[in-house]
């Protein structure tokens, strides 16, 4: 697909970030967050702070409605207060739900100053803290997008199939709360979002369009949280896989921790239920976040960045790129001792 006709230009801060972690990413892909910090600090020479005092923004609670909006605003205000106290004005957000949430709160405050006053009062009474409105809120994928060419220059690998010499065919999935709530806050806007496709192309891959590209992965908050509701979630992911299947993608790239997890796990669950995969093999389509993809092209050890934590095996992808890695280290702990391995990896036996 050609890029956006209506270019959404978005401000992305270029240094001095306050990192705000994601509940889901820390839980399922903690290596992705660590390597993101490492790339920024040690490859790009940026200043980014990882603060021990920030907590969940409670966004999952907010969207599953057990956390009221007033509380959510105050929690967001607390993160801003920590930034202010450390002298930071730029937030680097790992989670897409938080990212959308911070913007939602800021927009509310713009429209309804009395809500901001309330949040300030609540925060002051509860914690004694004060805050300034951040100058810039960017998602980690924005920052990777901004430095995609710098990363390309430092890259050890390209997103090219080493055997055929052809670019890898990569489909993307953009987390809904990245640009659907505020289209001008996402690179390329809500409809023809380019934040991931530009990254893929900058690193030598081919960004492949598919009809259900803009469809939700199906998290649905309360629908995944309650076991009996999960059919909603898997049904929507299935819709996406069916739509990708004819394009034979080599991988899926995501910017949202939740989507990354669901697209990985639901392939497995669908294989168990339907006895089929959407990848043409038994493994499934590997799903990587933009952080993990950046780390791969930069040549990080896949087991340092946590790729052994994916259900769909990433090794076939590493092989395609011609990545120099040691499969025997996949299940070694920090001291080099074998820590056992999953009973089963991939989707189908």
């Amino acid at each position, binding site marked *: 697909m050609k890029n956006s006709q209506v270019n959404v230009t978005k401000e992305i801060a270029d240094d001095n970030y306050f990192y705000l972690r994601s509940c889901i990413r820390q839980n399922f892909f903690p290596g992705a967050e660590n390597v993101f910090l490492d790339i920024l600090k040690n490859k790009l020479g940026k200043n980014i702070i990882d603060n021990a005092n920030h907590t969940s923004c409670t966004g999952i609670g907010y969207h599953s409605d057990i956390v009221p909006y007033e509380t959510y605003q105050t929690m967001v205000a607390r993160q801003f207060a920590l930034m202010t106290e450390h002298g930071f004005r730029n937030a680097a957000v790992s989670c897409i739900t938080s990212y959308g949430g911070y913007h939602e709160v800021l927009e509310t405050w713009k429209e309804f100053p009395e809500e901001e006053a309330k949040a300030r009062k609540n925060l002051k009474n509860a914690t004694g803290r004060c805050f300034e409105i951040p100058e810039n809120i960017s998602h980690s994928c924005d920052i990777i997008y901004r430095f995609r060419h710098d990363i390309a220059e430092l890259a050890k690998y390209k997103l090219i199939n080493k055997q055929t010499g052809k670019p890898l065919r990569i489909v993307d999935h953009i987390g809904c709360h990245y640009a659907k709530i505020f289209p001008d806050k996402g690179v390329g806007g809500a409809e023809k979002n380019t934040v991931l496709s530009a990254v893929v192309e900058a690193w030598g891959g081919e960004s492949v369009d598919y009809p259900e590209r803009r469809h939700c992965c199906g998290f649905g908050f309360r629908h995944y949280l309650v076991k009996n509701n999960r059919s909603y979630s*898997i049904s929507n992911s*299935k819709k996406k896989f069916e739509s990708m299947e004819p394009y034979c993608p080599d991988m899926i790239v995501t910017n949202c921790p939740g989507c990354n997890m669901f697209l990985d796990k639901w392939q497995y669950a669908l294989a168990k239920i339907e006895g089929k995969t959407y990848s043409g093999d038994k493994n499934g389509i590997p799903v990587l976040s933009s952080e993990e993809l950046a780390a791969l092209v930069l040549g990080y050890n896949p087991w340092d960045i946590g790729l052994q934590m994916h259900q769909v095996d990433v090794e076939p992808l590493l092989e395609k790129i011609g990545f120099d890695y040691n499969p025997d280290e996949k299940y070694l702990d920090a001291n080099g001792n074998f820590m056992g391995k999953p009973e089963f990896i991939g989707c189908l036996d």
Partner: protein
Amino acid sequence: MSQFDFLQPKSRQIEIEQFDDRILTYVLEREQSFLTCISCGGCTATCSAGNLTSFNVRKIGLSLRRGNINDLSDEVQKCMFCGKCTLVCPRDINIRNVVLLIKKGIAQLETEKTL
């Protein structure tokens, strides 16, 4: 019982390609006027059965067009064939006959199935 029984992927999205148009074709061959329905709901407003039950004639027409044969077969049973719908239709469609034909069409499909 599998540990995945709690997951039942499905979609209720209408897929036009998957319409079962056998009944629609049957009806249109015999009652061409149905083509001109504009879904105004005049029929439903006056319907004798509809005033007593959840029966909705306008929706029968839609189900027919969208090929929802399963919905149709139960629904048409509720019609009392009073014919008031036909009297009020602004497009002069013989709605009573449409419902009658749906019944016949479904019966015919059933017979074909058993044969």
